[in-house]
């Protein structure tokens, strides 16, 4: 999903100049991408996170100088919005049934990806997605999330091991 094609770059330029139909087409183009990132990180809060991401994207589209950097820029916004929202709702949301709640860090018990993701903290879900889906290096992913790479490394290692197992099963 990177870098942006010429066609997408043209859409960005047109949208920046106030062409609403270009914005519309850009939204069509970005929605699945944003939906995947937000769905994986924010889980049930995915739709709200995706909306907040796209609102931020379109509000600040004018500040994107290089249209080719679109996807990296959108990814950054999506990851941050999704993590932020997931954490905020985690704190304020209703307490779930404790018997269903997977123990934090209990990633080896995970049976599939969706299940695995619910067992991870939002930042760790974000790490996983950035590394395994977006192909970022650990250092890149950690800096995007403002996390020190060392502290998440061991946790992520376990998560990924279990994740691979579920993936290949």
């Amino acid at each position, binding site marked *: 999903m990177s870098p942006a094609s010429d066609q997408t770059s043209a859409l960005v330029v047109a*949208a920046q100049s*106030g*062409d*609403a*139909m270009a*914005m*519309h087409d850009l*939204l069509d183009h970005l*929605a*699945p991408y*944003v*939906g*995947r990132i*937000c*769905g*994986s990180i*924010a*889980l049930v809060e*995915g*739709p709200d*996170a*995706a*909306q907040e991401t*796209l*609102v*931020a*994207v*379109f*509000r600040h*589209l004018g500040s994107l100088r290089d249209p080719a950097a679109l996807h990296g820029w959108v990814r950054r916004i999506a990851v941050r919005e999704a993590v932020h929202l997931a954490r905020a709702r985690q704190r304020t949301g209703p307490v779930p049934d404790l018997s269903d709640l997977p123990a934090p860090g209990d990633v080896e018990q995970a049976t*599939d*990806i*969706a299940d695995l*993701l619910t067992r991870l903290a939002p930042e760790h879900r974000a790490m996983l*997605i950035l590394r395994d*889906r977006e192909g970022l290096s650990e250092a890149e992913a950690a800096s995007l999330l403002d996390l020190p790479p060392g502290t998440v490394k061991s946790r992520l290692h376990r998560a990924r091991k279990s994740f691979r197992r*579920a*993936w290949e099963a």
Partner: protein
Amino acid sequence: MNQPWPTTDIDPIRRLRALAAGISGAVVAEGFLPEAYEEVWARLSDLERELPRLVPDLRWLRITRREGDRLEVVARGHSGLRARFDAVLRPGWCFMQSRFLIIGMAAAPAPGGTALATLAAVRVPGCRAIAALAAPLFHRSVLKATARLRRGLRERATCQGAIAVGPPALAVASGGRTWSAPLAGTGESGPHRRRIGRHLLAVQNRVVNPLVVALAERGWVPPTYALVETVGRRTGRTRRVPVANGLDGDTFWLIAALGEQAAFVRNIRAEPRVRVRARPARLRDGLTMRWRSGTAHPLPDDDASERHRQLGRRRPGYRLDGVLLRALGSTNMLTVRIDLD
């Protein structure tokens, strides 16, 4: 790699909110209808049939080309303005853009009914502030259209409904000369207009005057302008029009630039009881601004130009407005004297 990652579908309502963030001056109105989504969207998506029913200013709308979900739409308003739109029509989603106007509508199933959102914005190249100024107008008309849709859905037998953008929308589509100062004494559009351009009048009547009325109702106009409220000769509803302030003690002098053609003059002919809200032009008349009722007397034998000059003598703002009025040119001015109770 078949195992699915969780993903999120972004529903039309959320998409519309996102787009609105990128469009300066966009107004989004959201609502809820207790009818099923299928029923609501079946009506809304029939653009040719439903939009003109919902938008008072829209005379007709035609889909002139269709390629998949992409449409080309031509619309014509009662004021004679024509606009060509590029449009996208999908289940739960319609988005249209002309040179001067952006319209969007989105519907999605919600528990117990349908969630509905509409977007409206003017495109004024190079001037975001003006686009933002039009926002309150859109808001009102979008709400009205939603109410109309709701009524239409309730009366299931008669096929009514749809959604919209309001009357000012197409007026703006007429051209760039949007913001002239309000003029004393123009009414709604009439049949014969020579020197005052049809388009400029349409803009004035549908955009400028409603905006000035909205501002004046909040007291945000210079004392040069006043509001006159008449009773609609056909509808019986109250109509407000901004006019130059000709308050003189207990008499309000009103000079109608279009004479007998002005809609408010025709209203007065049918019902002479009116209300006036004017700031006293001179300090010795006090400072309070309130609605006062009165009786209007059109005086066809009065020399309106002379009266107009005379009124301008002690009122610099009035004279400035008069300059604009004369620039637009009018030969059949009419004096109306309103005796306040």
